[in-house]
């Protein structure tokens, strides 16, 4: 075992974790928020830079087969770190405004990020379990940050109870897989996989656990409540980084560990994808609270992501990866602007009625929110469109035309609720004169960068797509469809 090599292979995660511990240490001796914030940003940028470099580097296993580095894992790490970095950048001002800026928050974000990185690089069920729980436990804390308000405490409790409940299923799934194959390492499980019931039940329970975490219907009940009760910028973190990490792990599991010979996994995913898309989009139609609306929209997006997974082709997997990046960029942006408006008015400002006339009052913010929402709705030439395009193209090429048609129709329905905030912002007169605070330079700058990325990847998607596709070329064998 070569420690230097191992350390290097998981360096982004190590940086994030160590920075998190140092942040805790600083916080317990000195209430130095500037220092902690600076440390967080610097360490996330360093980790991000490293994982971007890894994306182009070699692929392999490290830490005695615990994790893989390079390729899909490196891309997953990049997406997670992008989400984390942008959320931290917009969090400071917002948390200060709602008077909940604690040093621990940054430490929690860093440690959760480290868990996510472990999850996205996992090559062993133990790493999946440990990474997932590190992430979840830190997120429970963040969900309960506004514990003085009923809404915050309730969000934390719901998230916690359902999360712990789903952990039970996940762990039982792992136990049964272990029983069926005698190993916890993903490649070894794939080798020893058989279609006996123990294996199928284990894989099924594992998938249920994952469906809980990515909030796929019918395991989505916690999502809207938790998203609403969590401070908005941290909701963005929860919705993007944690979902990306979980989905990358899900891709690793589905693509590497579940051979098509054992059961019709593709059909299971297809069914879940269909009900997730339909239900997520339909319930979102009636939401008046913009955070709940975004929560249901994130459920629907989980459905689109599952479409790519259900396609089960290399194309589908790379499409899901691209979609994760797209989703992260536009969702952090949308939540960021919701946070901006909320910051002005207080916590109950997330009702869509309050957005009346704001588009012209704060023109730049209004335009940016429109761009993010159009992108979420999948209107070209924004990044969301190409994410959806790739996912549905993968499904069509895998002969799942019905799935693609349902997905497309569901996303047509989604346009209605994405248009609603814009209808209020631009087409209605403002209720009352509300004084507006100027947003800080970091906050504004972050959102502008996100807007530019939304447009940039919508137009110049080719290089990234080719890189992602290259992860699945060569001797890559896909198990899911058995071809």
């Amino acid at each position, binding site marked *: 075992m070569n420690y230097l090599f191992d350390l290097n292979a998981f360096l982004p995660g190590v940086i994030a974790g160590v920075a998190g511990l140092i942040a805790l240490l600083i916080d317990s001796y000195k209430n130095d928020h500037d220092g902690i914030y600076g440390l967080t940003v610097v360490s996330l940028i360093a980790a991000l830079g490293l994982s971007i470099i890894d994306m182009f580097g070699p692929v392999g296993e490290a830490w005695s087969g615990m994790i893989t580095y390079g390729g899909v894992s490196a891309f997953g790490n990049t997406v997670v770190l992008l989400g984390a970095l942008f959320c931290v950048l917009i969090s400071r001002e917002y948390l200060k405004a709602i008077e909940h800026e604690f040093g621990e928050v940054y430490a929690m974000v860093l440690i959760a990020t480290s868990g996510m990185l472990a999850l996205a690089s996992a090559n062993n*069920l*133990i790493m999946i*379990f*440990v990474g997932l*729980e590190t992430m979840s*436990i830190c997120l*429970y*804390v963040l969900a*309960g940050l506004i*514990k*003085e*308000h*009923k*809404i915050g*405490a*309730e*969000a*934390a*409790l*719901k998230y*916690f*109870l359902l999360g*712990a*409940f789903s*952990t*039970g299923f996940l*762990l*039982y799934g*792992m*136990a*049964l897989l*272990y*029983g069926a194959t*005698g*190993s*916890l390492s993903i490649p070894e499980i794939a080798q020893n996989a058989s279609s006996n019931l123990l294996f199928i039940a284990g894989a099924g329970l594992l998938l249920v656990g994952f469906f809980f975490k990515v909030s796929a219907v019918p395991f989505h*009940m916690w999502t*809207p*409540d938790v998203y*609403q*009760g969590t401070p908005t910028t941290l909701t963005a973190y929860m919705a993007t980084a944690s979902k990306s990490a979980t989905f990358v792990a899900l891709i690793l599991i589905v693509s590497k560990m579940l051979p098509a010979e054992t059961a019709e996994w593709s059909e299971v995913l297809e069914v879940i994808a269909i009900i997730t898309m339909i239900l997520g989009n339909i*319930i979102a139609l009636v939401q008046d609270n913009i955070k*709940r609306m975004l929560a249901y929209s994130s459920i629907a997006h989980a459905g689109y992501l599952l479409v790519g997974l259900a396609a089960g082709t290399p194309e589908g997997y790379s499409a899901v990866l691209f979609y994760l990046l797209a989703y992260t960029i536009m969702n952090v942006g949308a939540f960021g602007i919701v946070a901006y408006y909320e910051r002005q008015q207080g916590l109950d400002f997330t009702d869509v009625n309050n957005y009346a006339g704001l588009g012209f009052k704060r023109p730049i913010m209004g335009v940016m929110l429109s761009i993010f929402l159009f992108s979420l709705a999948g209107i070209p030439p924004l990044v969301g469109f190409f994410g959806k395009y790739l996912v549905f193209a993968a499904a069509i090429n895998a002969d799942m035309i019905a799935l693609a048609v349902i997905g497309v129709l569901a996303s047509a329905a989604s346009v209605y609720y994405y248009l609603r905030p814009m209808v209020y912002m631009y087409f209605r007169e403002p209720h009352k004169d509300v004084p507006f605070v100027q947003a800080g330079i970091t906050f504004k700058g972050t959102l502008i960068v996100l807007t530019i990325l939304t447009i940039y990847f919508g137009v110049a998607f080719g290089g990234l797509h080719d890189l992602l596709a290259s992860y699945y070329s060569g001797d890559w064998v896909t198990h899911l469809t058995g071809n």
Partner: protein
Amino acid sequence: MISIDWYLALSAILFCIGIVGVLIRKNAIVIFMCVELMLNAVNLSLVSFSSHYGNVDGQILVFFSLAIAAAEAVVGLAIIIAIFRNNFSVDITQINLLRW
């Protein structure tokens, strides 16, 4: 000699009792304890598989699951205390501010 199936069956029974408990009880602490029961049941499965194969990996997972259960308990009980401060109750049927 009892076969390994019996250990697994015991584990399955405990797991299902845990599930039913989570679904029907309304005291958040009891629900949480039922979750712990579920985790314990899983641990039993893991240990019996581990013994069956003579392979230590399963026990390692149990070890991690214990550590995580401890971390979860700390955070979970803190959350329960926070909700009690707000509601003066840990009855989840009274926690209904947030609805779809």
